[in-house]
């Protein structure tokens, strides 16, 4: 069974990771009110904490270079065990997609289209995603590089333009908050953009890696993406200062303040379009991965007939998930830190250990050799 026939380049893979992390800058309000002026520190903590987690992912995909997460589960836990664990992952992927879809709807509603019902915004959006997903992985990841370049250019521009309204004082005092809030903040940042990289285990087998380079590109994407996220938070913090905690979309508020010249308009429209584009990338990728996982789970030849039904389900799911955005923020702050680690740390770790105990990678390799010989 080989659903995805096209292969993407390692560079595309790296930029896909970057784009994935970068698009999470929208969600900074999940942790900014908790740690205030130390938000940037929390990102660094989060990156450090994420390193061992990434190591798990990398070792998993090194051990099973030709199988995606669902296939790995089948190999490691056997047919039935694998199916059950994969089902959990499937739920996780779908939830992630729906969550991001919801974020987009709320963002567009808040920033530009306040009167349009979010359902319509989301339906139009998911149709577009469905179109991209229809063409497969190559189309989905194709523009990662372009999006990252554009967003970095806008980030740089906003830094240059706003340099005179940044305050060094905004970052002070450093480390002056209860330990608990740091732990909570670090946990959120680890779980929300960084730990979600577990979804990339689904597409690693479709990248043209020379084995050694996997670490370089995976880590490269993670580090660069993390740095971009850090830069965004630093900018927002430097400009908004202690008011950062008030806003549900800090970056958007920052961009509203920045003026290119005294009379020449505001850059927020650029930012809104940029964020829509980045979120599009993330949602499309997640949507694609969910479908891929679904088709491997059900062992079907193609997921194309499932695209539209799944899209409809996602729209419904993203709407019944929460009643209000307050509830969602509470979910992000209070439930995700305890729930997401199961998928992002615990299960991959268990998989790795079981594989190690059963000496599975070795068998796998022998099998491959046999395949080659045959």
């Amino acid at each position, binding site marked *: 069974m080989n659903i995805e026939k096209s292969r993407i380049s390692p560079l595309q893979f790296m930029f896909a990771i970057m784009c994935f992390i970068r698009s999470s800058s929208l969600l900074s309000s999940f942790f900014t009110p908790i740690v205030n002026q130390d938000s940037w520190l929390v990102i660094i903590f989060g990156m450090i904490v994420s390193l061992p987690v990434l190591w798990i992912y990398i070792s998993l995909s090194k051990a099973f270079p030709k199988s995606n997460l669902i296939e790995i589960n089948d190999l490691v836990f056997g047919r039935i065990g694998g199916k059950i664990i994969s089902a959990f992952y499937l739920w996780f992927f779908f939830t992630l997609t729906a969550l991001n879809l919801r974020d987009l709807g709320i963002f*567009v509603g808040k920033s530009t289209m306040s009167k349009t019902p979010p359902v319509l915004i989301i339906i139009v959006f998911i149709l577009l995603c469905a179109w991209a997903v229809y063409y497969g992985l190559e189309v989905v990841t194709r523009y990662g590089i372009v999006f990252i370049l554009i967003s970095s250019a806008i980030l740089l521009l906003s830094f240059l333009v706003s340099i005179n309204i940044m305050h060094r004082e905004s970052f002070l005092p450093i480390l002056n908050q209860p330990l608990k809030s740091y732990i909570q903040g670090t946990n959120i940042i680890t779980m929300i953009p960084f730990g979600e990289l577990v979804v990339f285990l689904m597409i690693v087998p479709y990248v043209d890696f020379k084995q050694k380079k996997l670490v370089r590109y995976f880590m490269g994407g993670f580090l660069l993406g993390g740095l971009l996220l850090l830069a965004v938070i630093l900018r927002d913090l430097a400009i908004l200062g202690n008011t950062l905690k008030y806003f549900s979309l800090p970056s958007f508020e920052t961009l509203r303040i920045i003026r290119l010249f005294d009379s020449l308009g505001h850059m927020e429209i650029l930012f809104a*379009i940029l964020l829509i584009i980045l979120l599009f990338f993330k949602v499309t990728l997640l949507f694609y991965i969910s479908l891929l996982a679904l088709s491997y789970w059900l062992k079907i030849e193609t997921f194309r007939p499932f695209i539209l039904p799944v899209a409809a389900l996602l729209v419904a799911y993203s709407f019944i998930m929460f009643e209000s955005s307050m509830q969602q923020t509470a979910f992000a702050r209070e439930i995700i830190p305890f729930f997401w680690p199961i998928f992002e740390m615990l299960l991959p770790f268990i998989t790795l250990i079981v594989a190690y105990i059963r000496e599975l990678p070795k068998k796998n390799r022998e099998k491959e050799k046999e395949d080659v010989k045959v």
Partner: protein
Amino acid sequence: MFKYINKKLRYGFFRLTEQNNHPPKPEDDSKKTQETLISGNLTADLEYIRKLLGTSSDIKMHEFRYGEDFQLKGALVFVDGLVSNEILTESIMKPLIMNRNLSPFQTSSMQKTLDTVRQTILCSGDITEKYTIGELVESCLSGDTVFLSEGFDKALIISSKGWEKRSITEPQTESVVRGPREGFTENFRTNTALIRRRIKSANLRLDHMSIGEKTDTNVCVAYIDGVADPNIVDTVKARLKSINTDAIMDSGYIEQYIEDHPFSLFPTVGYSEKPDVITARMLEGRVAIISDGSPFVTTAPMLLLESFQTSEDYYIRPYFASLLRIFRYLAFIITVSAPAFFIALTTYHQELIPTTLLLTIISAREGTPFPATLEAIILILSFEILREAGVRLPRPLGQAISIVGALVMGEAAVTAGLVGAPMVITIAITAVAEFAVPDQSEAASILRIIFLVLASVLGAYGIALGFLGVLIHLASLKSFGVPYCTNLTFNHNMQDSYIRMPLWFMSKRPKAIVGQDKTRNKTNTPPSPLSKNSSPEENP
């Protein structure tokens, strides 16, 4: 309703195919004629040819006597107008009639006589022997002269093409400030010669085929062996062979028959009127298709960025060339999205317009009767109509029309308060920007309206979705197996994409297209005055 239309269409198709299949007899007949051998009886053969070609006035059959004491009977068959009179009289008629040495009794066999005629008498470099009437008629129709002689069961075909043709002139579409000014003509041979003259490599291949049941148009697939990817060459040939039509009027026909995505807004096959452009593309590994009767040569595969490159980019120094290229990208974005942005800003996101500008726009729009979107559509429509009228009319009249349209109507509409001046300005910028990227202007005109509708329905969100949609579509396009936006997304060969690097830097041919021979320059070092090749005088 669709079902109905569908049914109708199918019925129509059925009828068409039926008509095509119905009269099988003449086809059999013509097959027979094609296989009919030349009998050797001059009058009978001529009669047969006359029957085949009908009573066309331009078909000339000239019977004459030649040889020693005019003992031999011969005939020339040619189409008046297609043959050069000079060749006919000076190289064929004159030598034949003036030669008195040829005697039928001197030769032992007929083959020898004909060889003598061919080798010692006729003054032409391209003479072939043909045995069937069909071949004879075919070459006669394509401008050659047929020489028949009494008692011989074969004919000599003497190349004498020489009809009136346009000389090589500066092309109308791709004018340059710096660079070669010659363009292709409608003449097939001239065009192949223009290419051959620029690539003096033994590896240049010009593979010939003819397409079209009725027109029998000469088509030539030109590529450089080794540089072009053999897979692409094979694909091109296979697609050309599979064209099943009776007529090829222009290379535009061929483009539409062989393109990958007939429903896409974007062209996936390129064309140019300039031999330098075509040869440059062939040197990048592309395949050129020259078709008789068209001054436009088709190239495949085509990448999106090709539309933003001009030949002049490579003839001037890289800085300005790169700048111009960036302007072209901007122009394309402007021409596609400027009206959409204007609508989005003025009907959805007024907060983004600087205060003073907003107040100006409001006062300009105050009192105009239509909603902004309708106003934009009206203006775009009237611009397209004006352009169409300007192109079709004779040149002096066309200018008059544009003056009346642009100045009088535009000015009057604004002063009368029917449309707002800012909108007119926006549409004008859009219209001007369209011509910076002529290759994509068809796509741009349609995209512009799509974006306009999106913007008027969903504002900036609509525009963002529109851009994403276009990007997805572009990513899904392929031209002869090569992804359409290959070097748009930093895959490879970025030295000649968004900007143009110096020529010495572009040492590799485009990876996605090229075959075996991948390097262009041996080294990619800048020319330096200290290198061995430079003469010592240059060093101070």
